[in-house]
């Protein structure tokens, strides 16, 4: 449905995009006050804008990958434009005189001879080291130590036991919700505090904790009768797969893990598997839902 004939559609877009001001803006606003159809159109476009910002703003808050950090400044320091043809430059073009070139050729010959001798020596030493390494690694009965498989769940378990029963379990109280979200967003690039109150879990607050590969967010919830606390742990999912073996987690706790939008989430607490599953599903649904501006 388009705008009413009295008003150009482009004027309505210009209002939404702050392209008009003063008298022109008042004229369009007066029109909207008397035309609910066009007002609904404008409201819909504003909602689209808000949804776009909610969906992609977290990217701007993320810490850029290493390759993009200071990329412009590195370019500034590079001086000459980069070679984009894939050419490899050995040394540099000479602008010396003929006698200098002869001297340089003789010097280059001596350098080549020294380089050959040096290379031969290095090969002999390398062969000796490689032989020794093969002998040590292939000796029977000596197995290389297996690296422990990293697990986000074990890290969540550790965070649970470290913080949940602490006299001051959270850094940011739920009453300071905006500060809490800002702090998590700043450190983790993404923040949301799912509302689990319908499952009788009230948000106490949150803290930033050491994760497996970087900072992790820990949101702590408490049951209405104060009988149990549940933690929602999350951190950016790096190249760590789900563990093949069951992670070592306190037997009194249930842990549920999932991944969404490049993050790993673990809900951990002493509730039964069914209650934990419900809470995890609610948290997962809220984590994926964009927040619309009012």
């Amino acid at each position, binding site marked *: 449905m388009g705008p009413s004939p009295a008003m150009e559609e482009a004027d309505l*877009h210009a209002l939404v*995009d702050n392209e008009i001001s003063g008298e022109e803006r008042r004229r369009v606003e007066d029109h909207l006050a008397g035309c609910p159809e066009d007002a609904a159109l404008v409201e819909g476009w504003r909602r689209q804008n808000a949804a776009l910002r909610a969906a992609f703003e977290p990217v*701007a808050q993320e810490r850029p990958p290493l*390759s993009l950090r200071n990329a412009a400044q590195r370019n500034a320091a590079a001086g000459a434009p980069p070679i984009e043809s894939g050419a490899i430059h050995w040394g540099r073009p000479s602008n010396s005189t003929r006698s200098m070139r002869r001297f340089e050729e003789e010097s280059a010959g001596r350098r080549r001879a020294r380089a050959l001798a040096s290379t031969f020596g290095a090969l002999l030493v390398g062969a000796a080291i490689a032989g020794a390494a093969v002998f040590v690694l292939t000796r029977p009965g000596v197995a290389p130590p297996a690296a422990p498989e990293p697990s986000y769940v074990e890290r969540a378990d550790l965070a649970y036991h470290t913080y949940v029963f602490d006299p001051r379990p959270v850094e940011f109280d739920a009453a300071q919700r905006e500060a809490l979200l800002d702090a998590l967003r700043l450190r983790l690039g993404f923040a949301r505090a799912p509302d689990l109150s319908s499952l009788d879990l009230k948000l106490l607050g949150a803290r930033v904790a050491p994760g497996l590969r970087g900072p992790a967010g820990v949101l702590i919830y408490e049951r209405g009768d104060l009988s149990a606390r549940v933690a929602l742990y999350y951190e950016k999912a790096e190249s760590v797969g789900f563990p093949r073996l069951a992670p070592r987690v306190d037997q009194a706790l249930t842990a*549920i893990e999932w991944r969404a939008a490049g993050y790993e989430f673990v809900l951990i607490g002493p509730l039964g598997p069914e209650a934990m*599953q419900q809470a995890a599903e609610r948290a997962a*649904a*809220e984590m*994926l839902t*964009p927040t619309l501006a009012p």
Partner: protein
Amino acid sequence: MGDREALFAEVEEATPTLRRYARALCVLAGSIAADDLVQSAIDKAAMAIRERRLRGGEPGAARLCAYHALTSAAREELSGFESAKLSARLPPIAQGLASLPFEERAAILLIALEGFSYDAAAEIAGTRRETLVARLMRARAALSTVDLRPPAPSDGQRRAGGHLRLVK
């Protein structure tokens, strides 16, 4: 700070928002392709500064140059992704965005997400202001069919439950 340093600093400051724009523009191609485009855009803007094709006295010139380079590179690189399969986990607005033609997607993102004026967005997209506004209007009309309301809890639970993993 000299003019040249100020221009490099401007590109540096724009990196987070360039990534945001690239991620939305590459909604079909993914984050790695988006960051590659940002890298390429920064390199091209830096080259323009070094070759003195940008003037330090024009505020925002380096930022506009980087956005222009990113949009041009994306136009070439993304042609193969138009039929890529979308993740069901993307928010509805991102799914709607993915269904738009490239030029309409760029127009609405430059205006609604990045907050550029119509003139600046037209310069970035390499088109006339009237053309850009027409693309914006088509994009908004197409997105008006997207349901932006958060899913009902039952929908969300059904959707989330599929990828949850009970550990113990």
